[in-house]
């Protein structure tokens, strides 16, 4: 079992994200997510991934939890009194995040794992200002989380797919920041966050 795996597991379980499996698996011919992400993400059987797949399953499930969170958050916009501009943006972004959820769930299954269950969230946003503020935090956190986890991914197919998703998170982050009159790209090099740091950051939003 790799260090990566050990480092990931306790934190993930501590917020009761279920569905991780440590059983061995058979990597199917092509990943569902790859088919969605474009030709570059669709690869042949990756033999080296066999021994190290458990780590990838947990990373993808970790990403899936963040995407559940973002999807639910943007859907929240429908019930808030927001300007049309923000509502439209939230609708568009919710669709993107939902596609990420679908792709990541497919990827976990292709890796032989069980997709993490969707937690219940509570965001506590009441108006446009608090909505956009949390949107920025969530999108930036998403970018930092994917970038932090990226180098730990063993399968190049999963890595390619994660790359195609994190680029979207970064684009969302920049757009939200522009709306808030914040620097769209605050650093020359985006930060990274460890799984620990990400989970600590989003934990207050997870009810169960």
């Amino acid at each position, binding site marked *: 079992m*790799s*260090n*990566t795996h050990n480092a990931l597991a306790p934190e993930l379980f501590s917020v009761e994200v279920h569905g991780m499996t440590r059983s061995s698996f058979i990597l199917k011919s092509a990943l569902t997510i790859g088919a*969605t*992400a*474009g030709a*570059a*993400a669709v690869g042949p059987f990756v033999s*080296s991934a066999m021994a190290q797949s458990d*780590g990838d399953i947990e990373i993808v499930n970790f990403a899936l939890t963040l995407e559940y969170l973002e999807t639910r958050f943007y859907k929240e916009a429908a019930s808030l009194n927001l300007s049309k501009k923000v509502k439209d943006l939230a609708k*568009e972004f919710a*669709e*993107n*995040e939902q*596609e*990420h959820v679908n*792709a990541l769930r497919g990827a976990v299954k292709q890796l032989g794992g069980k997709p993490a269950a969707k937690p219940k969230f509570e965001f506590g946003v009441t108006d446009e200002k608090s909505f956009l503020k949390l949107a920025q935090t969530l999108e930036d956190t998403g*970018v*930092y989380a*994917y*970038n*932090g986890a*990226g*180098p*730990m991914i*063993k399968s*190049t*197919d999963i*890595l*390619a*797919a994660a*790359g*195609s*998703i*994190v*680029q*979207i*998170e*970064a*684009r*969302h*982050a*920049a*757009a939200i920041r*522009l709306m808030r009159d914040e*620097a*769209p*790209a605050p*650093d*020359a*090099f*985006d*930060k*990274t*966050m*460890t799984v620990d*740091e990400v989970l600590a950051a989003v934990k207050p939003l997870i009810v169960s």
Partner: protein
Amino acid sequence: MPDPRDQPSALVELADDPTSRKKFLRMIGGGGGVAAMAVLLGACGGDDDKDTASTPADSGSTDTGDAKPSKDDVKGDIDILNYALTLEYLETDFYNKVVDAGLFKGKNGDLLKTFGEHEQAHVDALKATVEKLGGTPVTAPETKFDLTDAMAVAELAATVENLGAAAYLAQAPKIKNKEVLAAALSIHTVEARHAATLNTLVGKGITPDGAFAKPAEMDKVLAAVKPFIVA
């Protein structure tokens, strides 16, 4: 016009001085904003994809990884870095020329200036990393851009940034050294942020590819930027 490459770079200083580099790595601790730069500087001698995948925060301690990367892997990474460096030279030059041309004032002018500074930081970091891996950084190409019309320039900026993001996306899975990968990822999302900003400025979609960004392979990217390179 002053050559921005003449400016002293803290990054290069750090890269040249292993003592201050170690101190720097200790100093930044975990997950800090400058972690990715430290990763770039710590790129040499990293592990292969065998074990101990490191997070940027760990980079200080993985320098002594026991798995020796193969010669081909290192060469492949150097080639990718030099390719990225060429694109970053191009972007840096572009923004410098745009700023000098004075086409944009106020907030947009500040944005473009900042983006240019980011690209310069990428250039510095990539050069240092190529050297750390034992390679020779490519030289900056001479560039030419049509800078007569502000709107056309903004659209060109958007095109270049979207292309840059797609280029990094295509290369990431090909990078062998985990620390180089971490750094490339941290640059990739900054290019994406630039792209989304410029797309917004010129009235294009924030995510033109939809929910999944599309990669662009090297031959396609180089063909696209060819018109901007003199020699």
